[in-house]
């Protein structure tokens, strides 16, 4: 196939893509929080600026979040989190890429609520691990929202806890994801 043909084919595919119905949705204001309980103290933080893209036709879903955007109750905890634990100067982002299993078609015009399987890969602190969990997808009054939760083990992401406090800090962290509203992705 010569070059012109290739370009033609790609152009046609591009156009057929735009002709299809809107299937891609995004948000810039998703929320991710995490917490871990331990004898010494509870650690909690919240990030309100999660970027996520969801394709309701293919089920492809992505999340990006900035590590420095996690806000803690205590400044010292936030500094330790960034400097000693996740090293956010070196690894500023966490990313999740995965697929949600869509069994019934999602349409913004039909109210629905479904628990779906999510399989994908999460990268934190430069280390990638598989994540398998479930998510709740909801359409209510033309608003598409989603939520999920799962537990990670710090050691899986090579996040080391200083030995002085290692007995007192929970090595597992519960992560909660909430997308209040996905918006259609304008082309």
């Amino acid at each position, binding site marked *: 196939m010569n070059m012109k043909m290739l370009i033609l084919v790609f152009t046609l595919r591009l156009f057929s893509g735009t002709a299809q119905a809107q299937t891609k949705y995004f948000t*810039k*204001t998703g929320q991710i929080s995490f917490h871990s309980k331990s004898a010494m103290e509870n650690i909690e933080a919240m990030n*309100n*600026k999660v*970027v996520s893209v969801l394709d309701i036709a293919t089920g492809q879903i992505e999340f*990006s*979040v*900035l*590590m*420095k*955007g996690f*806000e*803690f*109750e*205590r*400044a*010292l905890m*936030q500094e330790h989190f*960034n400097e000693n634990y996740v090293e*956010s*100067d070196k690894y*500023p*982002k966490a990313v999740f890429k995965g697929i949600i299993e869509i069994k019934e078609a999602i349409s913004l015009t039909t109210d629905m609520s479904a628990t779906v399987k999510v399989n994908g890969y999460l990268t934190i602190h430069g280390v990638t691990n598989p994540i398998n969990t479930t998510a709740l997808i909801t359409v209510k009054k033309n608003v598409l929202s989603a939520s999920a939760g799962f537990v990670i083990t710090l050691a899986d992401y090579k996040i080391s806890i200083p030995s002085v406090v290692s007995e007192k800090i929970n090595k597992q962290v519960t992560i909660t994801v909430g997308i*209040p509203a996905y918006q259609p992705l304008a082309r």
Partner: protein
Amino acid sequence: MDNRWWWIYQLISSNQENKVRVSKKNIVIIALLIIIAAASAYGYKEYNRKPADIAGIAPTAKVSAAIIAGLYDSDEAKANKLYLGKTIQVTGAIAEIINQQDTLVNVLIGDSNSLHKVSCLLAHAYNNEIKQYTIGKPITIKGICTGFLMDVELNRCVIVAVSQP
């Protein structure tokens, strides 16, 4: 007078009376107690320290929304070295205000045609002030730069100035 101080005063004054026997030992004990008290007071204060109010922090850089967004778009690593984790002051036109139930208010500043803008999550104290401003109004906002996703992200933002009509 506080009981403790009275006790310390007594200890010191009694030392002066019989200097030879106890003075050295007591001075060491008092010194240790003061050091321990100071250290624990510092530790307690440090542990309970709240994240700093940006309003009182001088920005390490002043930049226009278009310039910082362009820099992040072209060389994210370089831009991070300059701005990541720092308090910066950004000026640009209000492109969009995303208000989530009055609790989380994001102000996007920059050229409305540009793909990448500067997204400022306001400190709660400014959630009401922003309501009086309309899209297109030039604004200066100060906040902590947390990096770059679709936009340059600023957290805990305070409104520094709004151009007068």
